[in-house]
């Protein structure tokens, strides 16, 4: 890394920022007046799907795949076991919005208004500082991608999935919807039918990329859907860290984000996926994220779910080979009026596999944080281990928290433990800190950071920066603690 970062410094900065907090949501909830060049209009039917496929000039197998997925989507009911999803306006959502024909590897070629948007969000700055490559997506299409030459020379492929489908069709076909088939759930089927954009990252055997690669997703249109599909392949013995950031302006009408992320960590590979989601409070965020983890490979999920109206997200690891491991760290912030139904899944399908899940949630005002998880040890997953920890912090009296883990153990030699706690910011702690001269805001944010400490210790630097930038906005509300 060219620029020195220290996590402690970031924490300090966060506290400092909280003290002088005058940052407003408008910092990213702005929207520009960029008009889409092409849109399929509202609603979803066979014609819309065919149209998307036509515009993209896709191979025939993809077109057929989309139509099949549409059938599956139509046949599946809206899930009722989780949060209320009646606010999704299926009829009046715009399933495809194309900003421009431009998809450039040069920043200068990106249309000015879009460029301004990404500039405001600090995307190019981040790329310069510590990224090995980046992709930017605006509504339905990628508008920019770059990859440092050193990695390109080693055979790394990093671009939006549409470009990849054109340039590396066979590679894409090998992995597309293998881990997450369209039959998986209604939202995965929807993505299969109307997917557009997302990233494709392929790291060849033995290549270890020491700087992260990032995709930034921006949803601009009102009542639009963003359905990107991301595939990360870490081939045998490789190492990669992939980051995603997401924002959208706030509108009165709800938008839908239903992405698919598939990660393939092959034998001895090490893949890390970090995402910070800060959709505005008119977005239903329903992604399906899954990793196949092969022998002795390591998969790390690091997630921050900060924004959106409703999020349902359970990144899963299928531990398919012996000694495969997965770590899953997740921080959810359920701000006022929002629901975070998040968690993790780990499926132990081979011997000596291990998983560790740490989930922390914070509920502010009437925010509702839900942990929902699945842990399965199949018969034959001998000597596998798992530990799940989920903790919730309630900030206000009317904050609520729900914890629904689900553990299925079919293997007697496996070891499994689960712990969960729910607590609140204690008056005693607050008073103690305040008696030492801290303001109520400082004191409570210090306690919040203390609560997050064991996760913060493990999260990568880039994530701490991102967390800092985003969490402080929500934390600015802490004045209302009590």
């Amino acid at each position, binding site marked *: 890394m060219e620029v020195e970062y220290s996590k402690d410094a970031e924490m300090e900065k966060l506290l400092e920022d909280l003290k002088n907090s005058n940052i407003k949501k408008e910092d990213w909830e702005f929207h520009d007046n960029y008009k889409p060049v092409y849109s399929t209009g509202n609603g979803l039917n066979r014609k819309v799907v065919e149209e998307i496929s036509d515009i993209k000039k896709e191979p025939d197998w993809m077109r057929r795949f989309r139509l099949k997925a549409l059938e599956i989507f139509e046949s599946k009911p809206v899930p009722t076991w989780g949060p209320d999803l009646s606010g999704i306006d299926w009829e009046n959502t715009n399933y495809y919005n194309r900003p421009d024909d431009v998809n450039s590897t040069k920043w200068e070629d990106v249309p000015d208004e879009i460029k301004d948007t990404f500039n405001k969000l600090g995307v190019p700055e981040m790329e310069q500082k510590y990224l090995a490559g980046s992709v930017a997506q605006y509504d339905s299409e990628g508008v920019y991608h770059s990859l440092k030459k050193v990695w390109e020379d080693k055979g790394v492929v990093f671009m939006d999935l549409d470009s990849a489908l054109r340039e590396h069709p066979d590679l894409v076909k090998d992995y597309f919807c293998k881990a997450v088939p369209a039959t998986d759930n209604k939202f995965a089927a929807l993505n299969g039918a109307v997917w557009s954009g997302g990233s494709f990252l392929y790291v060849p055997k033995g290549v270890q990329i020491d700087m992260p690669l990032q995709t930034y997703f921006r949803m601009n249109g009102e009542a639009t859907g963003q359905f990107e599909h991301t595939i990360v392949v870490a081939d045998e013995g490789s190492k990669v860290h992939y980051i995603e950031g997401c924002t959208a302006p706030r509108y009165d009408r709800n938008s839908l984000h239903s992405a698919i992320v598939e990660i393939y960590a092959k034998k001895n590979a090490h893949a890390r996926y970090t995402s910070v989601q800060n959709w505005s409070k008119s977005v239903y965020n329903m992604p399906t994220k899954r990793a196949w983890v092969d022998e002795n490979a390591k998969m790390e999920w690091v997630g921050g779910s900060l924004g959106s109206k409703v999020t349902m997200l359970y990144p899963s690891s299928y531990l398919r080979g012996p000694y495969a491991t997965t770590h899953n760290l997740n921080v959810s912030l359920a701000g006022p009026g929002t629901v975070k139904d998040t968690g993790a899944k780990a499926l132990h399908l081979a011997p000596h596999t291990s998983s560790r899940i740490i989930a922390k949630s914070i509920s502010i005002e009437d925010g509702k944080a839900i942990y929902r998880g699945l842990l399965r040890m199949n018969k034959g997953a001998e000597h596998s281990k798992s530990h799940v920890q989920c903790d*919730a912090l309630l900030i206000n009296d009317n904050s609520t928290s*729900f914890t629904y883990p689900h553990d299925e153990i079919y293997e007697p030699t496996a070891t*499994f433990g689960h712990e969960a706690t729910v607590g609140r910011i204690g008056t005693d702690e607050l008073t103690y800190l305040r008696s030492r001269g801290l303001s109520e805001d400082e004191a409570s944010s210090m306690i919040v950071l203390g609560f997050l400490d064991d996760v913060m210790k493990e999260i990568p630097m880039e994530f701490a920066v991102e967390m800092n930038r985003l969490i402080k906005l929500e934390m600015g509300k802490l004045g209302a603690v009590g």
Partner: protein
Amino acid sequence: MESYPETLKTRLHDGAYEYRRDAFLAFLKSPVRDYKESPTVKDYVEITDKELQEMLYGEMKEIKESPEFSETANIRVFNDEIEVSDELQKQGVLVTSMVDALKSQPELVKKYVFPKMGKERIEFLINSSWRNGLFIFIPDGAKVTIRAHTISNASASFASKTVIIYGKESKVRYTDTYSTAGQGTGIQGKNIYFFGEESSRFDYLYLQDKAEGVRDITFVKQYLERYAEFQFFHINHGGSKVLFVDESQQIGLGSSFRVYGVNFSNGDQKMDIRDSSCQDGEESNADIQVRGVVTGKSSTIHRGNIDLEEKAIKATGFYDSKILLLSKDGFANSKPALEIKNANTRSKHGSAISNVDEEQIFYLRSRGIEDQIARGMVTAGFVGTMIEKANDEEFTRKVYQYAESLGANAFLATN
């Protein structure tokens, strides 16, 4: 089940008719879950509507051999007959059948029984279709020890309802044993409701050891007023399918609910053991600890939900489940949950599933102890540590007895 209202009119037209009718309507209205419980199974312990019909229309079958009651039992129940010791009656404890209580205690029934319809589908059905059960009233300030033993024919299918009301500052110790006579595959449902008045204390030891083929469905509820304390020791050992649902209703300030549960599933048994708290009362507390031992091809699921309502300021709720999975063909599962609707509370749950540590077995074997006995000892140790906390002699003895008697078959599938 459409013909049920007719049955209701003719067969069970008693003083509880309206209650039965409303409960049945509630049963009809409650939705049947339409999604799978987990990606692998639809239900962990499935009770079909066909089985419920059996329970509903089952006839009381005579027990041929004379029932072997526990010697110390001071309440003996078999078929619809109830026998109560004189000593208990002298202490002012009212023990009667539910059917008789409808006639002899209309006020109490109206006050306690009728307002509580239940929460769950099958519970509603039992409340509408019970044949009989116990009705017990313990006056304020009484100190009593009750040992009830209920024996039913293993092939009989029926539903029963038991209501136990105990007064202010009363102190009760109640041992409740359910067993069967003969062999059979009856489906037997029961609702047991407790009403604990202010500052009462109730120690309840529940022991279910029915015959192999019996399907046992039990709903237990504790309505706890101010400072009422309820300690619950339960053991589930017998039956083929066991659905055991226990939920406290902690209405009162400072009410306390402690549960120590142990269950042993073996053979092809399927057990679904649920212990939950529903806390409305300020400063109420719940501490639930459940242990399971899974052997053979059996399956056990532990569920527990700590529900702290908006009003339950300064309440605490803890749930802790541990399951020992001893065989290759066994299955263990835990579904703890926390539903916290008020920030001024503390709650926690933990669950663990593990097997016997082979290093421990080896250590015992190196001292000359046979493999199987070593496993029995470690298993007894696993449940024992929790039982010691419960500090109830009878409970401890039973648990050790079951743990150590896990037959040779228990561990056969291991290794």
